[in-house]
Each structure stands twice: as C-alpha cells, then as structure tokens.
C-alpha cells in the first residue's frame, strides 16, 4: 500500500486536515520514540501552552464555572432579561470570548505555518520502488 491518500471533503464534520497547535502539542511532546542516544534540545516558549493543553482538573474553579454556566443558561431559558442580567452576561461573555480568541489565534497562526493542504501536496513523499 503505497498510494498517498488525499484528505476527504464535505460532510458535517472537520475532515482529516492539518491539526491545530493544541493538537500538535498533545501529540508530539509526550509521544513518539525516545532513544537514549539523542540529545534532547531544551524547549522554549511553549511551556505555558503545553501545560494548558494537558491539564484537566476538577478544581473548585471548574465547579464555579459550571455553576455560572448553568445559572446563565437558566436565566436565558426561563426569564425575559432585565438590564442587570444583560450587562452581567455581556461582561462574562466578553471575558470568555477574549480567552477563546487567544486560543483560536494561536491555531490560526499555526494554520498559516502549515500553509493549509496545498503546501502539503508539493512535498508529497513517494516510495522509490514497490514494497514486497
């Protein structure tokens, strides 16, 4: 089996595609072969992202966030909003949107580095002779 396959298209989900930075960090920093002979070069500039991508803890903060989300959800579902609720929502929404923006910007930046699918096609490897 030596044929290079193309990412599929269409459908309601993301197709096989270049991965986001978080996906890459998840995968290449703590997986893959390590052989003692290698000199491991120190990593710079990614420590925070690494930690961020890997930590899921059921912390008090997580719980409080969930409680807030439930609260917002029920306000949205059950009651016409008064001005204080709206302001409150907007403030919270603003903070959340900011965080998300930063994460997505990192992903977008990576997409630029990856250059999308087109670049991948240029440099497609091939097998020199048939295997078996």
């Amino acid at each position: 089996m030596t044929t290079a396959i193309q990412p599929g298209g269409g459908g309601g989900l993301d197709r096989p595609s270049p991965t986001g930075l978080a996906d890459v960090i998840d995968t290449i920093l703590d997986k893959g072969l390590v052989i003692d002979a290698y000199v491991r070069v120190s990593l710079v500039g990614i420590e925070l992202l690494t930690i961020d991508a890997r930590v899921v803890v059921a912390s008090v903060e997580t719980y409080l966030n969930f409680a807030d989300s439930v609260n917002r959800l029920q306000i949205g579902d059950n009651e016409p909003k008064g001005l204080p609720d709206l302001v409150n929502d907007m403030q919270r929404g603003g903070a959340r949107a900011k965080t998300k923006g930063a994460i997505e910007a990192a992903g977008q930046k990576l997409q630029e580095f990856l250059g999308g699918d087109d670049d991948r096609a240029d440099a497609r490897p091939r097998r020199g002779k048939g295997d078996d």
Partner: protein
Amino acid sequence: MSTANTSGVYVYGIVPADVELDDGFRGVGEGEVDIVRSGELAALVSEVPPDRPLGEPEDLSAHARVLDTVAAAAPVLPLRFGAVMTDQDSVASELLEEHNDEFRAALSQLEGRAQYILKGRYDEATILREVLSENQNARDLSEQVRGMAEPTSRQARIALGEFVSTAISSKRESDTETLLEKLRDLTEMINLRAPTHELDAVHVACLLELDSQARLEELIDEFAEEWDGRVDLRLLGPLAPYDFVTTTRPGAGDQA
C-alpha cells in the same frame, strides 16, 4: 565522536530506505528535509544550527507536518519532538544500525497503516441542559443557587458545579464507550487519551489501515449526525503513529 560541529541534525523519524522526498520539503527552522539511509532503513533529518533553541510553534508544526505528510504515503516511526544528533554519520551508525532489527520489525507492522485521532467536544449549553433535565438534584441545586446572594452561595455553587462536572465525566465515559464499540469493528489498535478539556466528549487515537479511512469517515459521519449540536466531532489524520510506538529500553546496550 566529533566535537566541533557547525550544526546539528534534527531527526524526525525512521522510514523504509525506499522512501523519497521531493526537493523543497521544509522542516524545522526551514531546513530542507533530507534522508539518511543505512541498509533497508532511512531517517528523515534536517540541519539545525546547534545554538538555535527549538520549540517555537512553527518548530512543533514543522515536526508534525513532516511526519504526517510521510505517514500518508509510507510507514514511519515518529520520534518525539526535539531529537538532535551531531551529524548524518551518527544518525546512520548510532541510530539506524544500532536499532536495525527493532526498527525494521516495527516498520513492517506499520506498513499500510497510519494513526487517526478522534476528538469530540461537548457543546456547553446543550450538555448542561441535558444534565439538568436528567437530574432532579442538579435542578434543585441550581434553584438553590439562584435564590442566594453571591457570597453566601459559594458552597452551593461549588456543589452544583461538582455535580455537573461528575455528570459530564460519566457522559464522556459512556459516549466514548459507545464510539469505541463501533471503532473496534475497524481496528483493535486504540489508545484512549486523557481528556484535555473539561468539556471533552471523546479523545481517542487509533491505528488504522489507510485503506479503511473511508470507513472511519463514515463512522464519524454517523456519530456527527447522531450528536449534531451536542458534540463537535473532529477527525485528524492520517498522522504518524505517535501513540503506537514505544520507547525501547536497550537491555544490554549502554547508550551513555
């Protein structure tokens, strides 16, 4: 052992010796990816200056891009990010020859296969409504919280949040298991990854025949449809088999 090097050799992974690359295939630090061969094995490498720190986002993505591009066409043993050797000779002798048997055995097992990653993330509002609708306790707790002033409600909010968090964890387990039941029809080589976000629904890596990718996509389509609006499902791949190579501990060989 040479000491006065003007550059180092970054090593991406191990491939069969018959793999060829087009010119202009750029890797870490824009170095051109080259192939070092020894017998039936080859290493994907590129030159890096020895004093250049590695680990910038573009370095990480270059490492993954080189390996994943190759993985779509040939078996590859991915090295963990950041492996640098002194020169191409040492790659041939200390890496390829030294581990000839195990690398060849591993590559033959990987022939025609690649890794895929399935990632699902719950839609927060949808999953919270689901939890509330299924649990009287959660509804009671949330009513309680809403009737209280902010400072005094802290304990109640923590209790509500913990309940929700536990409920989502158990949904994650059961949704993941539902998906795994179907995935096992395609492959037994599955690595359950730890969640990386509190709203993760599914995080699974699998090793699959490249020929079966269409079947995997169909499977994911079915789940995406069934979970529409509830779980945002993504399929990544083909990727190098990062989750399915293990570091060998050379028993007698000392690598110091």
